[in-house]
């Protein structure tokens, strides 16, 4: 039987020094929802875990119109889903959170854990990428920041080096005339891993028609979740029409490099990238023009099933 020792860090300094001392033998945990599954499957075999769940300062979610959104790494996915400021200004992040597992897991899982597990299919990741999140990292050499786009290095691999801890994520303030949505496509409506996930954030000029900025991120269609920058470029500075959105969606499809697996073939995934990019952009456009979708409507849109 596999076993490990249990250690708790009371503060960040202690967490860093425990991780340094135990090196590769240690695994950092918080919600432990991914950890315990991977441990029981035998994928991860640490000789000790370092639990940082008790560091309450990392649990905070703060928002201001001037500074944007700060998510402590220990903010739970449920706290993100329920936060009225996130529902209002970062809709795609709230819909990403709502599509994430079941409520029993959302109550445990942390946003920092979802980021550090670096699954290509992590449900909060496309929205965080599309909102230009920056990672706050603390380590033996001090603190540093890194754009989330540079954080993912492969499935399950991140830019963190030994002794480093992701402490939080910073999202810039929302721009006026912006709308966003995340849609997850999965075989089942609940408790399933994404076959494809797409988050789109669209900002319009004062005229309410011209695209000022577009940010699109794709999940589960490459080794890491990533920004569909070619699709974004199609939209920027142009008047938004149905044809333009379709063109951008087609470009997103070209950028996807999915694999065949049990949830879908590569070809099927590429089709879905195009369909869902188009759909998320259409809703983001309506929302950017001032249409308010209730959270219940967004929740219905957030998960599209095959059956």
């Amino acid at each position, binding site marked *: 039987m596999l076993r490990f020792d249990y250690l708790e860090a009371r503060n960040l300094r202690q967490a860093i020094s425990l991780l340094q001392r135990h090196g590769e033998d240690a695994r950092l945990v918080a919600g432990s*929802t991914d950890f*315990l599954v991977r441990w029981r499957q035998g994928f991860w075999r640490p000789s000790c875990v370092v639990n940082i769940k008790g560091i309450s300062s990392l649990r905070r979610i703060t928002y201001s119109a001037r500074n944007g959104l700060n998510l402590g790494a220990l903010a739970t996915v449920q706290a993100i889903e329920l936060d009225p400021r996130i529902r209002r200004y970062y809709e795609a992040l709230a819909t990403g959170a709502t599509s994430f597992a079941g409520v029993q897991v959302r109550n445990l899982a942390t946003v920092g854990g979802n980021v550090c597990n670096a699954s290509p299919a992590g449900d909060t990741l496309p929205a965080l990428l599309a909102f230009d999140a920056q990672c706050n990292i603390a380590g033996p050499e001090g603190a540093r920041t890194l754009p989330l786009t540079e954080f993912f290095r492969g499935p399950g691999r991140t830019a963190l080096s030994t002794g480093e801890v992701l402490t939080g994520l910073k999202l810039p303030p929302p721009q006026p005339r912006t709308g966003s949505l995340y849609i997850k496509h999965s075989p089942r409506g609940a*408790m399933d891993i994404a076959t494809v996930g797409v988050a789109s954030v669209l900002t319009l000029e004062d005229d309410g028609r011209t695209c000022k900025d577009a940010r699109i991120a794709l999940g589960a269609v490459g080794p890491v979740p990533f920004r569909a920058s070619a699709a974004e470029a199609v939209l920027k500075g142009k008047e938004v029409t149905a044809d333009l959105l379709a063109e951008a969606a087609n470009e997103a499809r070209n950028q996807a490099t999915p694999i065949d697996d049990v949830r879908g073939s590569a070809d099927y995934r590429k089709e879905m990238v195009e369909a869902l990019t188009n759909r998320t952009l259409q809703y983001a456009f309506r929302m950017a023009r001032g249409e308010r979708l209730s959270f219940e409507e967004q929740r219905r849109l957030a998960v599209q099933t095959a059956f």
Partner: protein
Amino acid sequence: MQKQPLEFTVNGRRRQLLVAPYYSLLDTLRDEMQLTGTKKGCDEGDCGACTVILDGKPVTSCLVLAHSARDAEITTVEGLASPDGLHAVQQAFIEKGGLQCGYCTPGLIMAAVGFLQDNPVPSEEDVKFAIGGNLCRCTGYTKVIEAIMLAAETMREQNS
């Protein structure tokens, strides 16, 4: 790897015990405390059979490290009934026939209890969403949803 001391409150009673560092809360409840009402289904957070209320929130206890629940308040299905009778959710499951084999029932009941304390006036859509993390292979869920809607009504009456 020796067992380590652990203290928490289960169903209103302060408990002190020795638990291995790698034990889940689920295994602790079942193996160390003989609270076998909480069921082990998949042991990977997919089926919801192991749902308990931890510090006010429903969680899959198979994914909780026992020692991370130190000093927490835990409610299991054994802690719901009072000397006056069953909890409104338990009673509603019986009245509506919200169970057949019964294996998923403690988890569904705990998920419903956790959900109704946050949303006392749910829509059917809300209920479906709230039990998305619980698998039942017998009922087809219809009777479960009816039971939770009835429990919501009963609890509103009890509280008014």
